[in-house]
């Protein structure tokens, strides 16, 4: 029973690891975690792997993480020491869970206890004869590794224990020196890094760091920033953009120097991987501490330069990048470069290592770099054609190696001969060209898919470097066409190359020229269509569809070819072929959007009409009919817009869009969308009054009378503005003049909306912000004939004045009026018999003065006031009193 249970657990764990998401869909992380922890009691290694690999899935919160860790620690404490492997795995799992769930902090019991446990284990000098010290067979080494990882994740966690660690490292029993050296180096590096970042830190800080010897674990300094703030992992100091922070110390860094020397002396005893990591950490330390000379590494250099191990040689290159001429003289640099070139093609190096070295070569850390330090590729100045000759691509190279070498060789050639066409004089270009032809030869003679892909990648790379050498560029074009003619199935590769050449750094025009030549190849098949296989015809149409995207390429021959295909009698099965029909229509579709459409109109319409009538497939017929209608019914602009916009049903040229069984459905949806007026949610532009004269600036609306002031203006006709937004932001917006015909002399509001076609070629309807017509904007001069002179105008004014502002009252009626309405306010002036004065005081402080003067058969009211707002009221009042007079039979 136990065995079956064990087997089922192995399977369950394996199934979890294969796909945690699928596994957890059938159970919950909580349940699984509980089960796992229960099983841990049996000391089975497998059970730890889910926690080891996916701790955050099983412990989604810090709280669960903490609890899990406490549980695992209790397992550890009960596990007898003889289960070394399980105990080691427990320690690793604990570290993983603590770090990943973010529990490492002084406030966490689990992490405090765990750290204490690890430090205790690291100091444990108990000697177990069965304890093989290889790598991690012992709990002590495992504890050191856990400490190292904790320090890497939470920098300066252990910086208080540097002296302790140094002591352990130098202990007499040396069996774990690799683990201890690695741990010490990381703690030192992090400590120095954080110190260097602190403003004002100096030699004393460094001294304190090296001498740090806190009592075990955290209690000593619970407020350490590393624990409270959970310091983030530190980035590498040796970035490509120069060095990181530096710690200003005097020349006297004796303690540090002695520690570094002893670490370096024993570095030889470490495995190459650990050695490289140690050397890199120490490189970072020395790069940050100004007081230690990089010459401290000198003694190790020859050993490192002669090494066969990638990581150790790489580590030397990184030292070179960090210290340049303070560690490597010009002579050393030349030597290192020579060595690197040799390694790039050393028969004892694996392909991956050779590729890596080749990449290092184009990012070689020069003492005096001339090229841009932006991390881009640049050849070292010292790399002569002689040196690089060993790096030329050969036909026996693997694809990646070949591309890397082609790239380097091309860079070398361009460096040597410049980007001139005449630079082709050197043998280098001729060799690379020959090589490309050899690859082409392989493709032509049945090379497999990998060979085809490699050839096209090599061609692209060649064009990127030598696209300007017309001789080769044109020859490659010719050869690609010949290749296409022989192997039409390579069309997608050729078109892909054309696309990339067009988008990329290849000289403009090359791709168009290639496409033009391809068009020639494809349409030449029209001469004897019966001899062309169905597949080849398909590729020809694909090619022509892509060619039709190019406005610069004339499409007359394409349309002729399409006509030939559409009307070809044999074989009759073709006429039924949906695929062929839709390929043909895909070309038509691009032609509809072609700038040279005007010249193609009739022949294209013939093709479409023919397909619409005679093709055997309904979908194709419908489709053709639709295109025909579009071609004949829409304006050029709208058509281009509709097609550019209306998605990808037949747009098979540039992207492999998903093909729906009926392209018609997809396209109809797209076209519907293109031909419908869409409602814009936000106003796209607005009208601005330009000046008093009544013109408006800014884009075009179709103004309508608005609801609230309905009827105030006569309805306006639509206004059409051909191009609303002109090129260039500085261009003045178009001005339109609106002639308003007011129906009432009041200010009002115009409600506007616009129908327009946007850049996405869809037609939109948008409501525009209201335009307010102010009272003053209604003013017009008196509409009199232009021939009227000033005298006539004056007379008109006088007449109007009399008409508008004189009450028609007789003397008696006036007296009655005054008596009735103004008696209390009259101001008598016996000396003036011609007029009456009335003074109205309106509280709190306004005055209205009236001078009333009878004249022949009328009465003039002169009015003065210190509050103009009273005028309408006075006016109303006067009107009402005179009306009253009228009602009483007074002639007014």
């Amino acid at each position, binding site marked *: 029973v136990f065995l079956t249970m064990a087997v089922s657990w192995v399977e369950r764990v394996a199934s979890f690891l294969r796909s945690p998401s699928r596994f957890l869909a059938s159970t919950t992380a909580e349940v699984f975690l509980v089960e796992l922890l229960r099983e841990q009691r049996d000391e089975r290694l497998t059970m730890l792997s889910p926690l080891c690999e996916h701790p955050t899935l099983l412990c989604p919160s810090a709280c669960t993480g903490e609890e899990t860790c406490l549980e695992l620690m209790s397992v550890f404490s009960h596990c007898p020491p003889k289960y070394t492997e399980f105990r080691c795995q427990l320690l690793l799992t604990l570290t993983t869970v603590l770090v990943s769930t973010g529990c490492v902090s002084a406030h966490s019991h689990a992490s405090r206890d765990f750290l204490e446990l690890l430090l205790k284990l690291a100091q444990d000098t108990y000697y177990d004869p069965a304890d093989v010290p290889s790598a991690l067979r012992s709990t002590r080494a495992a504890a050191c590794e856990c400490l190292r990882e904790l320090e890497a994740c939470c920098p300066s966690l252990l910086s208080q224990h540097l002296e302790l660690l140094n002591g352990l490292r130098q202990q007499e029993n040396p069996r774990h020196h690799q683990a201890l050296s690695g741990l010490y180096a990381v703690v030192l590096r992090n400590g120095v890094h954080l110190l260097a970042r602190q403003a004002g830190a100096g030699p004393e800080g460094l001294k304190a760091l090296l001498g740090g010897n806190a009592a075990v674990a955290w209690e000593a300094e619970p407020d350490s920033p590393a624990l409270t703030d959970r310091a983030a*992992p530190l*980035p590498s100091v040796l970035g490509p953009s120069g060095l990181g922070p530096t710690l200003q110390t005097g020349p006297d860094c004796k303690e540090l120097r002695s520690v570094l020397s002893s670490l370096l002396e024993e570095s030889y*005893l470490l495995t190459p991987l650990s050695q490289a*990591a140690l050397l890199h950490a120490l490189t970072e330390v020395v790069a940050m501490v100004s007081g230690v000379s990089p010459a401290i590494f000198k003694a190790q250099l020859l050993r490192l330069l002669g090494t066969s191990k*990638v990581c150790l040689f790489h580590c030397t290159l990184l030292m070179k990048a960090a210290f340049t001429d303070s560690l490597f003289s010009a002579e050393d640099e030349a030597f290192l470069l020579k060595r690197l070139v040799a390694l790039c093609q050393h028969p004892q190096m694996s392909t991956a290592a050779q590729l890596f070295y080749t990449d290092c070569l184009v990012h070689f850390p020069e003492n005096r770099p001339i090229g841009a330090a932006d991390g881009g590729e640049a050849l070292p100045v010292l790399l002569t054609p002689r040196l690089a000759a060993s790096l030329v691509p050969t036909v026996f190279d693997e694809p990646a190696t070949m591309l890397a070498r082609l790239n380097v060789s091309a860079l070398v050639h361009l460096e040597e001969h410049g980007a001139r066409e005449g630079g082709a004089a050197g043998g280098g270009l001729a060799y690379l060209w020959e090589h490309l032809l050899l690859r082409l030869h392989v493709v032509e003679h049945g090379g497999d*898919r990998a060979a085809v892909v490699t050839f*096209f990648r090599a061609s692209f790379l060649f064009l990127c470097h030598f696209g300007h050498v017309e001789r080769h560029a044109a020859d490659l074009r010719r050869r690609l066409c010949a290749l296409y003619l022989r192997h039409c199935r390579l069309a997608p590769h050729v078109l*892909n190359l054309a696309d990339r050449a067009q988008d990329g750094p290849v000289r403009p025009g090359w791709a168009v020229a290639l496409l033009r030549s391809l068009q020639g190849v494809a349409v030449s098949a029209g001469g004897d269509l019966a001899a062309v296989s169905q597949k080849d015809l398909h590729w020809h149409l694909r090619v022509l569809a892509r060619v039709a995207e190019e406005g610069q390429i004339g499409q007359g021959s394409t349309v002729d070819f399409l006509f030939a295909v559409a009307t070809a009698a044999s074989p009759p099965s073709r006429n039924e072929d949906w695929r062929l029909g839709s390929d043909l229509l895909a070309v038509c579709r691009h032609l509809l959007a072609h700038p040279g459409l005007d010249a193609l109109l009739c022949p294209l319409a013939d093709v479409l009409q023919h397909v619409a009538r005679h093709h055997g497939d309904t979908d194709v017929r419908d489709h053709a009919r639709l295109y025909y209608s579009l071609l004949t019914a829409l304006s050029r602009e709208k058509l281009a817009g509709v097609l550019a916009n209306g998605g990808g049903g037949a747009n098979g040229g540039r992207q492999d869009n998903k093909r729906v069984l009926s392209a018609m459905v997809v396209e109809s949806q797209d076209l519907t969308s293109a031909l419908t007026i869409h409602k814009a949610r936000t106003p796209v532009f607005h009208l601005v009054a330009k000046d008093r004269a009544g013109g408006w600036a800014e884009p075009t609306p179709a103004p309508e009378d608005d609801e609230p002031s309905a009827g105030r203006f006569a309805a306006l006709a639509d206004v059409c503005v051909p191009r609303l937004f002109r090129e260039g932001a500085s261009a003045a917006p178009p001005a339109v003049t609106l002639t308003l015909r007011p129906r009432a002399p009041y200010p009002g509001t115009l409600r506007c909306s616009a129908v327009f076609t946007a850049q996405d070629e869809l037609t939109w309807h948008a409501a525009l912000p209201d335009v307010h017509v102010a009272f003053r904007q209604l003013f017009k001069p008196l509409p009199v004939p232009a021939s009227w002179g000033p005298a006539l105008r004056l007379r008109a004014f006088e007449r109007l004045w009399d008409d508008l502002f004189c009450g028609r009252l007789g003397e008696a009626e006036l007296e009655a009026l005054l008596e009735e309405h103004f008696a209390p306010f009259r101001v008598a002036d016996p000396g003036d018999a011609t007029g009456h004065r009335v003074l109205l005081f309106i509280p709190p402080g306004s005055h209205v003065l009236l001078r009333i003067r009878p004249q022949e058969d009328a009465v003039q009211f002169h009015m003065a006031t210190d509050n103009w707002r009273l005028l309408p009221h006075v006016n109303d009042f006067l009107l009402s009193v005179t009306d009253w007079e009228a009602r009483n039979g007074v002639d007014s």
Partner: protein
Amino acid sequence: MSIRALWIITHEKGEHVSVRFSRRFPTVEYRAKSLAGSSYQAVPEDSAVLQLLLTELGLADPGKPYVAQRDDCLNQQRTPALELHVDSSAKGILWPVLVISRGPLILACLPLVEAGEPRPPLSSLLSVSQGLTLLEGLQSFLGGSEIKTDGDGLAPRLALMPSVLQQVCPLGTPLDVPQARAPSTAGVPAAAGSPRQPAWRTGQHRGRPAVNVALTETVRCMQYGDPSKQDLWDVYGTVTCKCDVEGVLPNVTVTLTLPPNGSPLQDILAHPCVTSLDSSILNASSVDDGDGSAFSGPYKFPFCPPLEPFKLCSYTSQVPVPPILGSYQLKQQQEVNHLRVSVNLKLHESVKNTFEYCEARLPFFNRVQMSIVDVKVSSGHLDVNKEKNLLVWVLGQKFPKSREVTMEGGIRFSGQLPGPVDPLCTDLTAYIKLYFKVPDLTLSGCSVDQHSVQVYSCAKPKIVTCRELQSKEYFIWNSTGPAPVSSGQMIL
């Protein structure tokens, strides 16, 4: 200097693909997340990674002739690091995914990038060379290139992976590479108080002391028989040692010597157990014209040997002549399927005429089977393979006294079945490939004298040295047809 995840994948020419083992390192992932900031991309589940990897490696959808994502010519893979596009956004990228692919085995890992944006150059990341070293170590642990996916070798080795990784890469930081074989039973841990023991020497040897030094030289060659094309050949050597000597930190010195007029050994690479190297040893390089110093030995390699066999050093050498000079002429006869063959091979006088084996193979591609082989050889004997598309000329252990052998005759191709296809070898482009091994010989003249091996230990060990020359990619191209040129020497 750490890796975030590791995958071991097997496939058979793109089919039957599966992730056989994977391992994630969540603490490294925690660091990756913190260091990358907003550009962080989590590692997806294995099945997703597998699909992305196959696409990048060009192995996805093997049945489809063109897949835009897989075959785009913009996708210039020129480094061992791939970019996996987890989603279509510019940020959803896993980089740098290191991949080593050989035969049916694909090993991949994702090193930690200890920098944020912008992306640093690959060459500035130590974790990349660490990852490559680990992957290469795992590859040789899993059986190197001779691996079969379902074979006996792989499954048991894969089963060992969890505990192997617990030792060599417990928390994502590679500490060592796994040893191909279990530690020698003779390995006994050092007692306390003894001098520091190298981490790569996991115990002490107990038993009869012995030192074995084997020097193998390999010669590669391209002969065209065409005055307009320069023949090419190169030689490289490897010294392999197995040292069973006592002591915690034993000291052994192996010295390579050259004959008085020998050309210097170049591009010397030494095992990391070599304690010190003289700068004069490293000076000679195959990539330049060589300086005047012309140091030609002796080449001393002092080292503390690991317990298992190891490659002490390797070198390249430029020798004045190839060991066997050949000419190969194929002539098309009037009948389409009739070829006239004429071969001449000449053993150079400086080369010892005692072979372990020597044979010349003449493959015929892009043709139907051979029907009549009417060919005479002056020495050795001829075999035709079962498929009737390959002539094997077995020269045996010795060339005749004249040191020259010839083959003459005609071959008719009128069999029923088509033979193998090689897009390179069309029409009269054809080659002879030579396979030979000569014991106790090096072309460079390099040798390890038994008496020059010094061992500083109490007991005097038995010292055995040997050397041999073998061929690899030794081609003689038909001089009547076009042949692929493959050397930068042509440029100069």
